[in-house]
């Protein structure tokens, strides 16, 4: 950090903007998380323990005030990435920079970061304290950060109303007395109560019916406009991701497959995995049910990921070169894709440069 920048900080609101609108709110570089596997008997003898490569070299940025949608195959590392961003687990490698500051540095202690970044967890039940009423659960965070109890409770009840849970009926209930979708909304209210700058939403609306979901998505959009919030929105619901996201990141087996503006990515996916994902969406037409899964083949194994391009074992355009060469995340016109078709001189027959040469 330059000295000039830290001087600016002195006058700045502690949870306000630091580096101006052009500086990404979040920059993630070379993020890696490997989980150790329990060693088998043989491995103990040979000394070679294996790891689950849950997140295996991920780079991305989240701009101020944008919503970055994150989609990808189940198990590809979305929740692990989110937990790394929350500093709930330590990365094996890589760097997370929040508004120009390294998290955990003197300029941005973890405690301060934790107030500015909140998360709605995929599992709504286990993320609520069973011994707190939901009103107390929501008011807990703000109180930890110095908001007086009366004010925190008022804020909690206001948020409950805004997520469609009438406080008079619900504020004093226990988590087990709520339905799945009601608990999910409590979690959203709780994340918003601390007035964060960045909210990570991991499957945060998946348990809601379409009407309540619409209400919650409208609320998220309103709060974004009111407070300039930034969202990282992880979801399997592609309709919702397309609607809410400014940009979308597609992950496959611990890596980024593609990123780009939402509309462009959905209208014209570059990566073959993105294409397969989009074509797997159910049709809603009872007379045109899916008879065969569009993406066949076994889901890959994050313990021994395939060499070269990780998608080559299932990709309809795979060529021998795909098993040898690791595609780089190439940038072109605001879009990025990690596929040899889109990488200059990569030796894939569908590569435009190869087509010109022919």
């Amino acid at each position, binding site marked *: 950090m330059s000295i000039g920048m830290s001087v600016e900080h002195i006058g700045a609101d502690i949870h306000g903007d630091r580096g101006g609108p052009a500086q990404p709110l979040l920059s993630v570089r070379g993020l890696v998380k490997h989980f150790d*596997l*329990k060693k088998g008997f043989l491995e103990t003898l040979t000394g070679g323990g294996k790891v*689950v490569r849950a997140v295996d070299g991920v780079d991305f940025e989240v701009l101020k005030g944008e919503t970055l949608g994150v989609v990808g*195959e*189940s*198990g590809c590392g979305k*929740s*692990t990435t989110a937990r790394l961003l929350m500093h709930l687990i330590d990365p094996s490698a890589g760097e997370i920079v929040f508004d120009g500051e390294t998290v955990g540095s003197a300029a941005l202690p973890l405690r301060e970061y934790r107030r500015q970044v909140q998360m709605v967890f995929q*599992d*709504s*039940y286990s993320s609520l304290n069973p011994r707190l009423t939901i009103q107390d659960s929501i008011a807990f965070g703000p109180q930890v950060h110095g908001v007086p109890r009366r004010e925190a409770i008022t804020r909690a009840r206001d948020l409950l109303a805004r997520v*469609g849970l*009438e406080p008079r*009926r619900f504020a*004093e209930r226990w988590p087990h*007395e*709520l*339905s*799945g*979708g*009601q608990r999910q909304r409590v979690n959203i209210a709780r994340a918003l109560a601390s007035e964060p700058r960045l909210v990570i939403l991991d*499957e945060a609306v*998946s*348990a*809601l*019916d*379409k*009407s*309540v*979901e*619409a*209400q919650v998505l*409208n609320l998220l959009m309103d709060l974004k406009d009111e407070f300039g919030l930034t969202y990282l929105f992880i979801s*399997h*619901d592609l*309709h*919702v991701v*397309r*609607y809410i996201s400014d940009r979308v990141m597609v992950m496959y087996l611990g890596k980024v497959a593609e990123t780009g503006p939402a509309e462009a990515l959905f209208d014209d996916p570059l990566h073959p995995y993105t294409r*397969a*994902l*989009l074509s*797997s969406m*159910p*049709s*809603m*037409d*009872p007379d045109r*049910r*899916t008879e*065969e*899964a*569009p*993406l066949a083949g*076994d*889901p*890959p*194994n*994050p*313990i021994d990921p395939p060499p070269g391009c990780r998608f080559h074992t299932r990709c309809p355009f795979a060529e021998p070169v795909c098993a040898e060469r690791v595609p780089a995340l190439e940038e072109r016109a605001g879009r990025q894709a990690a596929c040899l078709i889109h990488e200059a001189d990569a030796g894939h027959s569908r590569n435009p440069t190869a087509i010109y040469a022919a």
Partner: protein
Amino acid sequence: MNDTSPLIDVRDLRVVFTGGKKPVEAVNGVDLTVARGESVALIGESGSGKSVTLRSLLRLHPERRTRISGGIRIAGHDVLALGSRPLADYRGKVASMIFQEPLLALDPVYTVGAQIVESIRRHEAVSREEARKRALELFERVRIPSPARRLDAYPHEMSGGMRQRAMIALALACRPQVLLADEPTTALDATVQIQILLLLRELQRELGLAILFVTHDMGAAVEVADRFAVMYGGRIVEEGPTREVIRNPRHPYTLALMQARADGAMTKGARLASIPGSPPDLANLPAGCAFAERCAYAREACLATRPEAVDLGTGHRARCLRTDATAHALQHTEAQPA
């Protein structure tokens, strides 16, 4: 029990939670049948009683704080009358459940493989090796990557979607006749989701499994369900063949729900349509139609009586006083309720 009687037969089910300050009438008068080899999608408002209904079929509510009445017959068993021993035999073997929240159903201190093996051996006299072989086959069927290795994983070591698939495997472990599935595919990406939905359809055909599943995803429901049942305020307000309910919904709540996701409803930047108002207070249900306060078709009469089911032909029924007014409402999107 003969072969034509339904595998699931629920009559006038009522569930009241008495543990809180005021009794909560979570389910009040559910009638529902599911035949062998049939699959029914239970959809509806968040908090309308879908999970409570499903849990009642396995008698999973704490007895001291819950009042249950009505009739539940499943594969010939009078579920509400079962003693504790027969109940334990019934759970998992006759009917089993995929829970909305996998972490609640899976025991954190045992590996998922051990839990499946345990479940198989509780119901059947098979060796540990045999049970493990079956567990492995199940993991392959639900498409868990590196299945052999994952059998030895603890629930927290799996991703959300893998846990969900592990629970599907656990539910199928004892080859039940009835599968109750609460949001079985919400944690799955589209590519795996479609594989699981195809698997459910296969099981339904091959083993004659009766499936009752809750979902908010209409696309998923359309892929698997023969019939739809729509819940609101603790009752089934509409039911019928999938095609009928999707194309020709007749209850104003179903109509509004379908409109929330009609083509073009999710235009970027535009506000999303939601049903105004809030769901009824289950501790203080209105005397009339529970949807009246939010219903665009409501009339004076709606406030006085709880509507009985109106038969609309071919197994299509709706609990509404004004099914004449809602006919073909979806086709004429411009048409305003009279």
